């Protein structure tokens, strides 16, 4: 009789419930009795799936400061990202946690600026977030596999396994990761907490998840939904007919620090366009 691990665990589990007297043979028979089986978890039929999730950012679609704020706060509100403020109302950099934010062109693409470039271009804001790299340094260095790759390309983390060593923060070339220096619930307003997404504990690292939890119930990422139409495009890069794939194939896009070989999956469209 060949058994895979899953079958073995089922049998072992049921055997232990029935006591060790039950032979493996009779346990095997019991498995055919559906009533004794644990409920099977089926894939949500509405779930959005992909071989390789990726994002195309079209900065030309962000017209006003409000567009950024809506996009960022959609993510941060949904994921209960704490917002620590100083008494004067400014962001408290010391405890700051962020999943998606804006950074100037010369900060986002260091080394790409030149001295004749206008201040306007240098300061041009870009939306930055975790790049969900093909070959992420954060995953490579994690000593507990608390951060790992999903088959659809998303770089995920298990906030219950993380020991808070912050090696991933040292390794990530994009500064995408945040650490909870204090209890993050102190930076949340109780009445605004989203009950659909867990809050975190102090001492663990967190970052953008490409909204894997929303994808599994058929929703696009919160930032994509809140951003101006066509500003953040999200799709399957491996699907030749997807919008993101068409843009990446046909238009000029750039990625942050591609020379490091991590393979970022966030592409920045140059020049914008009428794709959406």
């Amino acid at each position, binding site marked *: 009789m060949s058994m895979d691990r899953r079958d073995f665990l089922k049998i072992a589990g049921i055997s232990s419930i029935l006591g060790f007297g039950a032979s493996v043979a009779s346990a095997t028979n019991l498995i055919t009795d559906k009533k004794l089986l644990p409920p099977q978890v089926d894939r949500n039929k509405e779930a959005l799936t992909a071989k390789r999730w990726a994002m195309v950012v079209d900065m030309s679609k962000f017209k006003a400061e409000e567009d950024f704020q809506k996009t960022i706060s959609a993510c941060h509100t949904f994921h209960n990202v704490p917002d620590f403020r100083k008494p004067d109302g400014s962001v408290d950099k010391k405890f700051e946690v962020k999943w998606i934010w804006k950074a100037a062109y010369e900060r986002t693409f260091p080394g790409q600026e030149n001295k004749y470039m206008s201040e306007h271009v240098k300061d041009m804001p870009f939306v930055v977030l975790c790049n969900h790299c093909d070959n992420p340094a954060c995953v490579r260095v994690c000593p507990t596999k608390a951060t790992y790759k999903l088959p659809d390309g998303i770089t995920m983390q298990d906030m219950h396994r993380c020991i808070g060593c912050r090696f991933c923060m040292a390794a990530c070339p994009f500064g995408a990761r945040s650490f909870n*220096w204090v209890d993050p619930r102190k930076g949340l307003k109780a009445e605004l907490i989203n009950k659909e997404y867990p809050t975190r504990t102090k001492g663990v690292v967190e970052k953008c998840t490409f909204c894997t939890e929303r994808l599994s119930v058929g929703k696009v990422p919160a930032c994509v939904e809140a951003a101006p139409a066509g500003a953040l495009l999200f799709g399957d890069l491996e699907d030749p007919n997807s919008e993101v794939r068409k843009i990446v194939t046909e238009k000029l896009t750039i990625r942050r620090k591609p020379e490091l070989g991590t393979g970022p999956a966030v592409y920045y469209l140059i020049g914008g366009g009428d794709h959406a």
Partner: protein
Amino acid sequence: MLEKALEGSKKYWAWVLFLGFFALSGTYYYIRQFNEGLGLTGLHRDVSWGLYIGQFTFLVGVAASAVMLVIPYYLHDFKKFGKIVILGEFLAISAVTMCILFIFVDMGQPMRIMNVILHPTPGSVMFWDSVVLSGYLFINLLVGWVTLGSDKKGVPPPKWIKPWIYLSIPWAISIHTVTAFLYSGVPGRHFWLTAVMAARFLASAFAGGPALLILLAMIVRKVSKFDAGKDVIQAVSRIVAYAMFANVFLLGLEFFTAFYSGIPGHQHPFIYLYKGMMGSDGVFHNEIVPLMWTSSIFAALSLIMLWVPKIRQNEGLLSLACVMLFISLWIDKGFGLIIGGFVPNMFEEVNPYWPTRPEAVITAGVWAIGFMVLTFLYKIAITVREQTAGVEIDH
């Protein structure tokens, strides 16, 4: 043999009490940090490692340096090191203890530290670092204890210990190499992305560790009848001189590559550390600069002093050179190395870091615990050696 740590003069207990005070103060702040989080430190999103990890890195070097006594004594049959080799091994035990404590106090979720063993990840350098460090602690405890136990009984150490002693040599190299890989293996941090990192770690370790050992041997000679010997101290000082030369040379190579290649990203950490840079808050930040120059000047001075035989042979000046060298390397590796990796950050922004008081007290507390372990171990070794004075057992 443990009981020998429990009997001592008033001065001995005053010293233990002194260390105990720092250990307790550190523990007090650690309990606060445990409850409130690492927000109690000066660390932030951009500089996510600091004093703790710096101390850890520096002390791995101190631990590894025991090998500089083990090699001459056991591989080259340099008999004169017979007395001091146990001091080196016990220093290694104390240093590894501090390393483990510094890692522990740096953890965001220290109660989950066993996850490293529960979910072993061979692809992670940190996993290997925990493996080699605990192995090194075990080897040194075993070798130190067995050889000292034999000394006490006046018999040569058992034959089976020899393979462990030989194993300790590559193992010592491995702990510091793997620790260097923590840094030199991550993409995007220019200051760390250098192939000579491990080599430089070893060079600075083999200078700093034996320099500390010279100072310790001098203190031990003052407070007890245990004398490692003037010529032994001279021999160790020559090891320090060569290793320090290699270290300064390797640091020079880093400067050459950064500035001759002209690659801005490679230059920025050096400019920040040695000159200062404009911060993203609009303030010019040069807080680290005096420290780095102190390190450089102390390195140059101590190297010259160790290099000139006349100066080296004067024990007063030798101890001064060792103090300067130790401070120089402590700044360079226990502080500058970490800061230079994080500032400027991944966005080429300068957000400086400075340790807070709780962080400094916790750091002092760990050092106090380490020195307490060292005091107990040295007390045991010295008492055993005093009782068997005059009898030299061939290991």
